[in-house]
């Protein structure tokens, strides 16, 4: 079974027969050679069945020999490196490669879901939009998972990718995409003119179609010229040649993306090497020499294993020394099929016939069939054979019907330029009647084309256009023009007819093989009104698979044109978007994953919290202390409860440096505050602080915070941690764009000042121990909402604010960040006799919920001042940002859910953020939804779960019982609506 010699040719090919590579497919062992792809090695071993199709689970073989492959998608490797949906035609074989087929159950050759095809009447275009509409509730739970399981491609690994990916940048004068004859000529011409050249090629060998065909250049085999060209380029210091590198996208300003597969051809990457590298190439000019893609022919059962592109069959014979069939019929309407026939026969394949839809006078001049091969003027109707191709039925041009036995059908409906990259910036391809193919329309700035991508299909034409494009690109990027002489070549005839719709048959003819879109699906789409190519694409999913329609878009347009009666030239091809081949998300992420996803901010006293044994949690960009467990506290809850108790009964210490801090000064500072905050500031005296509320222009609440007046023209603003950056940007906008005339300056001083909350009944005593003894902390001299610039006992300058987030007697002490750690350590030391303890973000949250203070969960961008119970803060005596739209009826609507407190009832009762509120006795339906829980915590002070939430009717419903439902977790608890201020509602403690 292994290494079946009958399919591998005895000689020829660009494979290294001296190197044997072992690999497995679906658990079976095979052998191939270096230079093989997975597809060629399997074909050489007699494997023809590669996978099951997306929707109908039909048997599929290999269609192509390149990245356009729609059928032979396989899963590679195992474990965390498992990689789905890779085209076997692009997988470079390596020793030990494991591959598996996809989308089959229970096995590839016997797939129960193939029964889908008998129901294809139900599974037509848009079937899931129609069939599974009712009952709606079944969609999510029943239909969608079943459909997703049955249809589909490979499985993702589900484990963290163990490999590394990197991003790199390159700058050059001329980027040449594609190392076929045109690309090599362009790179040589540009390099000889002195340009810095990058040449990228997706394949692991240079040469393009020269690898797949037999040509002579200047009397020598063409590949010798390729080797010389490559050697010259690689020896030039101004040239970089990157094989295994696919250009993915074209962006503004001459920026190109390319993916280098550094180690995909190895079992695993070499030490310290990435698996893939994403290049961002900035080029003055670009020469696109991406070649062309042969289009398949549409006819009934054209997806049977054994049906292949003629150019692919030719590539397997010439490049991989593989015979794809014993007896082959060539079918199509392009001269390229005839050339393939010649090479295939030379490789020992019996050519049963060439079937050409074109009458003899429409074929290329000088086109000759290999001797003894019958030429039939007609079109294939149907591929015969159930498991794989056994024959072909042909509708003869003169009206007859004929069947020919064969085990392979090679089709060629002509070559279409691979112009995806030329359209990424929005240009549309145009249909060229003379060449019978789409050509790039307007080229993107800085880009030109060479070779087959601009319709120069012959070898001589490709070399000439490449040399010219390369020379021009060199000049355009400021280098010299060098015109080189090129070896002579004999060009094959390359005439072709445009795409044709399949003859009408009962059996399905596939237009998009990867997404199982048939001729009839497109017809149905048009009948239902999806006539434009973009609509039909979305309705039928034509061209939406991972191959992006490289072998289906053109045939699809032919069907649309035939059904709608619009001339083909008037059809508009659908849009291609980057990337033009599938890219692993890992490559796009590069090194930015896990903790490297973004920079992490640490407070100046982070080391102190670490030394105190804090457990940290991410909070926006910050890493903050969540709680400080003590020995014996195995869980977060006891630690948090103890920390809350400490604040309520003794004194706690919390690092609140993450708050945004903005220093505002100037003669117009007060006016500025008046305009950006909703509440008034004219009565704020020097040495006092006040709570402030900012609105967005649309009237919703932007942020809250405090403003302290440190001097006549000097204010200090704080913002919430989460909104620090956006509030600062908003203030810059207000100042620079709205009122540049106001005379003031402000700066973010977040990093300059570290701030600690000192909260609890003993906080005054603790402060006394560290501040300059001359500072009078008595309640009468430094009352609630006082603010002052002071000094510590050792002379460290500080700012002291008597503000409280916890509802206790509390201060916030700001010190220069350089002194943060020593000050907080001094506070801890001085606080020992007072029972001081540090508290973290969790306790901070519990304390503020107990006190009914709103935070980010309540100021969530969808709440108004009224919703938050802060409507009295909206000044009526001045204009400010958001004033007008805050008054519109929708925002002032009294039926909006408003802030309430919630207290869980019963011993088991628990509240969770995000749970929804329903009136007692009301059914659990969206129509009866009355609000939601925004914040919830276990309150050690009240010994029950409490929460803040928004409820229709608001405080008028205090005392009512509501149902708190969390359908995600399947929980429901009763709760009582209470005042949002759970602790010390009269504020006696803060004023103590």
């Amino acid at each position, binding site marked *: 079974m292994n290494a079946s010699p009958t399919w591998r040719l005895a000689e020829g090919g660009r494979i290294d027969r001296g190197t044997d590579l072992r690999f497995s497919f679906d658990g079976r062992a095979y052998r191939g050679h270096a230079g093989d792809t997975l597809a060629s090695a399997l074909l050489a071993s007699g494997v023809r069945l590669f996978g099951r199709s997306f929707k109908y689970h039909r048997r599929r073989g290999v269609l192509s020999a390149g990245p356009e492959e729609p059928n032979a998608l396989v899963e590679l490797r195992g474990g965390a490196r498992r990689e789905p949906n890779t085209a076997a035609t692009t997988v470079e074989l390596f020793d030990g490669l494991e591959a598996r087929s996809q989308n089959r159950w229970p096995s590839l050759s016997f797939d129960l879901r193939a029964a889908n095809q008998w129901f294809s009447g139900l599974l037509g275009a848009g079937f899931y939009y129609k069939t599974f509409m009712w009952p709606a509730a079944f969609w999510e739970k029943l239909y969608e998972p079943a459909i997703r399981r049955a249809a589909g491609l490979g499985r993702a690994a589900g484990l963290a990718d163990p490999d590394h990916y990197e991003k790199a940048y390159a700058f050059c004068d001329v980027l040449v995409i594609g190392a076929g004859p045109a690309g090599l000529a362009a790179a040589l011409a540009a390099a000889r003119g002195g340009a810095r050249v990058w040449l990228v090629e997706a394949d692991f060998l240079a040469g393009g179609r020269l690898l797949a065909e037999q040509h002579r250049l200047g009397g020598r085999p063409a590949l010798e010229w390729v080797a010389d060209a490559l050697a010259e380029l690689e020896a030039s210091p101004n040239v970089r040649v990157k094989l295994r590198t696919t250009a993915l996208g074209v962006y503004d300003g001459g920026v190109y993306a390319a993916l280098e597969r550094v180690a995909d051809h190895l079992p695993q990457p070499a030490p310290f090497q990435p698996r893939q590298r994403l290049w961002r190439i900035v080029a003055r000019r670009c020469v696109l020499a991406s070649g062309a893609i042969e289009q398949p022919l549409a006819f009934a059962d054209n997806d049977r294993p054994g049906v292949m592109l003629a150019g692919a069959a030719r590539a397997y014979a010439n490049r991989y020394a593989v015979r794809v069939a014993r007896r082959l019929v060539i079918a199509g309407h392009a001269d390229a099929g005839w050339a393939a026939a010649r090479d295939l026969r030379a490789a020992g394949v019996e050519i049963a016939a060439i079937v050409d839809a074109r009458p003899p006078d429409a074929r290329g001049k000088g086109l000759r069939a290999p001797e003894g091969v019958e030429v039939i003027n007609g079109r294939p109707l149907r591929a015969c054979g159930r498991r794989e191709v056994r024959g072909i039925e042909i509708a003869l041009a003169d009206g007859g019907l004929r069947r020919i036995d064969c085990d392979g059908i090679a089709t060629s409906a002509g070559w279409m330029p691979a112009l995806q990259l030329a359209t990424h910036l929005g240009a549309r391809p145009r249909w060229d009647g003379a060449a019978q193919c789409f050509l790039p329309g307007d080229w993107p700035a800085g880009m030109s084309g060479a070779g087959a991508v601009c319709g120069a299909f012959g070898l001589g034409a490709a070399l000439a256009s490449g040399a010219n494009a390369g020379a021009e690109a060199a000049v355009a990027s400021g280098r010299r023009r060098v015109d080189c002489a090129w070896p002579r070549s004999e060009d094959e005839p390359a005439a072709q007819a445009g795409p044709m719709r399949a003859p009408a048959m009962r059996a399905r003819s596939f237009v998009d093989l990867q997404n199982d879109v048939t001729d009839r699906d497109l017809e149905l789409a048009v009948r239902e009104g999806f006539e434009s190519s973009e609509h039909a694409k979305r309705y039928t999913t034509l061209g939406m698979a991972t191959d992006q329609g490289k072998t289906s878009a053109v045939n699809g347009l032919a069907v649309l044109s035939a059904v709608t009666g619009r001339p083909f030239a008037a059809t508009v091809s659908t849009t291609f978007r980057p990337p033009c081949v599938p890219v692993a998300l890992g490559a796009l992420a590069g090194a930015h994953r896990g903790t490297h996803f973004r920079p992490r901010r640490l407070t100046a006293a982070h080391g102190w919290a670490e030394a105190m044994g804090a457990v940290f949690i991410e909070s926006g960009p910050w890493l903050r202390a969540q709680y400080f467990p003590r020995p014996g506290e195995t869980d977060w809850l006891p630690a948090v409860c103890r920390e809350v108790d400490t604040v309520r009964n003794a004194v706690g210490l919390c690092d609140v440096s993450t708050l945004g801090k903005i220093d505002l*000064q*100037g003669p117009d500072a007060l006016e500025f505050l008046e305009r950006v905050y909703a509440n008034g500031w004219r009565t704020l005296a020097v040495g006092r602080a006040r709570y402030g509320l900012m609105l967005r222009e649309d009237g919703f609440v932007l942020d809250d915070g405090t403003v302290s007046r440190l001097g006549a023209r000097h204010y200090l603003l704080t913002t919430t941690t989460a909104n620090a950056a956006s509030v600062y940007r908003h203030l810059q*906008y207000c100042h*620079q*764009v709205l009122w*540049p005339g106001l005379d003031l*300056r402000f700066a973010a001083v977040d990093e300059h000042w570290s701030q600690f909350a000192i909260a609890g009944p003993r906080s005054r005593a603790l402060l006394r121990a560290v501040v300059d003894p001359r500072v009078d902390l008595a309640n009468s001299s430094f009352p609630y909402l006082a603010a002052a610039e002071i000094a510590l006992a050792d002379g460290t300058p500080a700012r002291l604010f008597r503000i409280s987030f916890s509802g206790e007697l509390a201060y916030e002490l700001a010190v220069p960040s350089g002194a943060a750690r020593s000050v907080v350590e001094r506070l801890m030391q001085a606080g020992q006799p007072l029972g001081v303890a540090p508290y973290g973000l969790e306790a901070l949250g519990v304390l503020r919920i107990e006190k009914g203070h709103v935070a980010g969960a309540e100021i969530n961008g969808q709440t108004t001042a009224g919703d938050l119970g802060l409507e009295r803060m909206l000044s009526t005596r001045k204009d400010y940002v958001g004033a007008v*739209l805050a008054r519109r009826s929708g925002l002032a609507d009294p039926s909006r859910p408003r802030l309430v407190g919630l207290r869980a009832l019963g011993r088991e009762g628990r509240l969770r953020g995000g749970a929804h509120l329903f009136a007692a006795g009301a059914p659990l339906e969206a129509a009866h939804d009355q609000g939601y829980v925004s914040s919830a915590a276990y309150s050690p002070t009240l010994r029950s779960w409490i929460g803040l939430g928004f409820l229709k009717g608001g405080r008028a419903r205090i005392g009512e019982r509501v149902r708190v439902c969390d359908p995600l977790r399947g929980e429901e608890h009763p709760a009582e609506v209470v005042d949002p201020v759970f602790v010390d509602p009269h504020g006696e403690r803060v004023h103590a």
Partner: protein
Amino acid sequence: FHDYVYLRANPLGTQRELWYHAAGCECWLLVERDTRNHVIGAVRALRPPADDEAGGAP
């Protein structure tokens, strides 16, 4: 006022838009951009030029 907050012209061609240089000088810039090809025309800082020399206390 509703129009001022919510409606945008979305022209095909040159559009004036505000950009914020967040990682640098914190300037709001008035940028003319062609929405078809992202070509940037004129750019002007909105901050009054007097600001740049002083940069500090009023």
